[in-house]
């Protein structure tokens, strides 16, 4: 918007426009759905607990206490161990908090890296028309490819561990974000200011960065957030298979796998990490559903 048009609007007009914009902001429409609002609140609590784990966790997640071995949740034998203790007498609540930190942290890093690359691919496909078909065809095939196979192949080549897991999750995040970014960028490409920018003599780099990327990033960011649920589920599955985080690292998938051996005598050791993964992924999926409804008015009838 130029200064000339701005000066034609009164202060009140501008405030009204801003209010309408805020009211129709996508995230606001999402949060109107009570389930999605609850999910968002839950995720905020969970993320806070994960980030603050070193300060608020009641015990050290790696200190064992053999006398409290397999102490059930809320038992008198182990006061303060709200969720019980595992096979080495480690506090389950603290381990789950640290586990969330590892699981969520890895998911965030991987989606940021993979999504960033995906966004770059999507924007280039929309901007450089010649690249569109080959790039998007490749993305289509990658999108249909089961992401767990990326995980297997990368773990096989680079060895098991958190590093390979991060790479696998990043690769898995690339195709869907690339597609979203292309869609968002294509509608921006139709705008007159793109033409205007070119007429003024801006280069490709400036046009992509200043005009295209800045107008697309809110959409891309929302989808990246929602992609986190899938990344977390995939990461936990790969760790459960023994291809990601290795014991004794407190990570939800490997904790669930570790607790399998004691399923009959102490089911909570594996059930609680599973429940944590389930609730986090469920919250992300509820947000995703609300987003789809918000963006597709046809479904709202």
């Amino acid at each position, binding site marked *: 918007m130029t200064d000339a048009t701005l000066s034609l609007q009164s202060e009140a007009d501008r405030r009204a426009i801003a209010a309408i914009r805020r009211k129709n902001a996508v995230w606001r429409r999402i949060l109107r759905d009570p389930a999605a609002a609850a999910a968002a609140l839950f995720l905020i609590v969970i993320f806070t607990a994960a980030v603050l784990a070193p300060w608020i966790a009641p015990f050290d997640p790696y200190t064992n206490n053999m006398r409290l071995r397999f102490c059930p949740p809320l038992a008198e034998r182990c006061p303060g161990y709200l969720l019980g203790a595992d096979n080495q007498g480690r506090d389950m609540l603290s381990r789950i908090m640290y586990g969330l930190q590892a699981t969520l942290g890895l998911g965030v890093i991987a989606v940021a890296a993979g999504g960033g690359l995906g966004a770059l691919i999507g924007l280039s496909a929309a901007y450089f028309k010649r690249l569109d078909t080959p790039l998007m*065809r*490749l993305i289509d095939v990658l999108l*249909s490819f089961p992401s767990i*196979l990326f995980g*297997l192949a990368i773990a096989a080549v680079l060895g098991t561990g958190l590093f390979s897991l991060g790479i696998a999750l990043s690769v898995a995040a690339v195709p869907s974000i690339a597609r979203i970014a292309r869609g968002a960028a294509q509608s921006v490409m139709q705008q007159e200011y793109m033409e205007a920018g070119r007429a003024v003599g801006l280069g490709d780099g400036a046009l992509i960065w200043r005009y295209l990327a800045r107008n697309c990033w809110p959409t891309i960011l929302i989808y990246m957030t929602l992609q986190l649920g899938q990344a977390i589920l995939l990461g936990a599955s790969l760790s*459960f298979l*023994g291809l990601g985080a290795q014991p004794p690292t407190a990570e939800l998938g490997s904790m669930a796998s570790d607790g399998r051996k004691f399923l009959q005598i102490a089911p909570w050791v594996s059930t609680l990490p599973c429940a944590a993964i389930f609730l986090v*992924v469920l919250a992300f999926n509820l947000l995703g559903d609300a987003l789809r409804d918000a963006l597709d008015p046809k479904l709202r009838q």
Partner: protein
Amino acid sequence: MARHIAHRVMISLPVLLGVLLIGFLLLQVVPTDPATIVAGPTATKAEIEAIRRDLGLDEPLWLQFIRYLGRVLQLDLGRSMISNRPVSEEIALTFWPTVELMLACLVWAVPLGIALGTLAARRRGTLVDRAIMALSVMGVSVPVFWVGLLLIQHVGGAGLLPFQGRAGPIWTGAGFLSIVLPAITLGAVFVGPVARMTRTSLLETLSADYVRTARAKGASDWRVTVKHALRNAMIPVVTLVGLQIGFLLGGSIVTETMFAWPGVGRMAVGAITSSDFPLAQGAILVLAVGFMVVNLAVDVLYAYLDPRIARS
């Protein structure tokens, strides 16, 4: 039609090449030099050199890669470093159990998903619809391994059904019992997506003109839903079910590992964790190619069911 198939094959080729490249890479990271193993502990340097030349290990990598492609085409995938049996033999043993598990999962999960999706679409906006959709979103959020763990704990632990390994082919009594829990585990995460796709697709067809015509004609509500709308709604559902094979594959790798089911997925995980590179290469290759073949078949089926696709 032929053009459409050729086009799809062309698109898959770069990915296939990528998969083969990963397989080739896996054989390159083997820590020991194959030539020293063949030569034995008493071999001299000159002898090892001769064997290296003999095996083609001194050639440039791209030439070795082309030779590798030739070997793969002849189904020669090398030997397992642990059992020393040919990889192709190991795969032949594990292939059928995996297919069996997937079929056992699809055979109950797809009909149930379609039934639930139809019910939800018919009762749109009611409590039934909400409950089914809530179940469906829970189904896509639950980790496969939790479903398996709960079944092992409550059903397997109570001694009601076996939960370790495969007792035999599915048509034998013991074999059938041993597949029940893995098939329920794998299917549990599949019902949700199918129900949701059916609901969306059916809602679209229910508002189509020909459905209104059928109603005007005086056909009963049930007849309109099943005979007119559902039949047409099935076209996207069939394809989407096919495209979810990748999702199913991921679930089956976890399920096989949990239930000690002797399939390709469990073999792949075992080979990777024990650094048996040739076997890992073979298993990943088979999983990837198998997936691509199913995908291609579904694509062709879709084009056959809906001729508009092939033309676009």
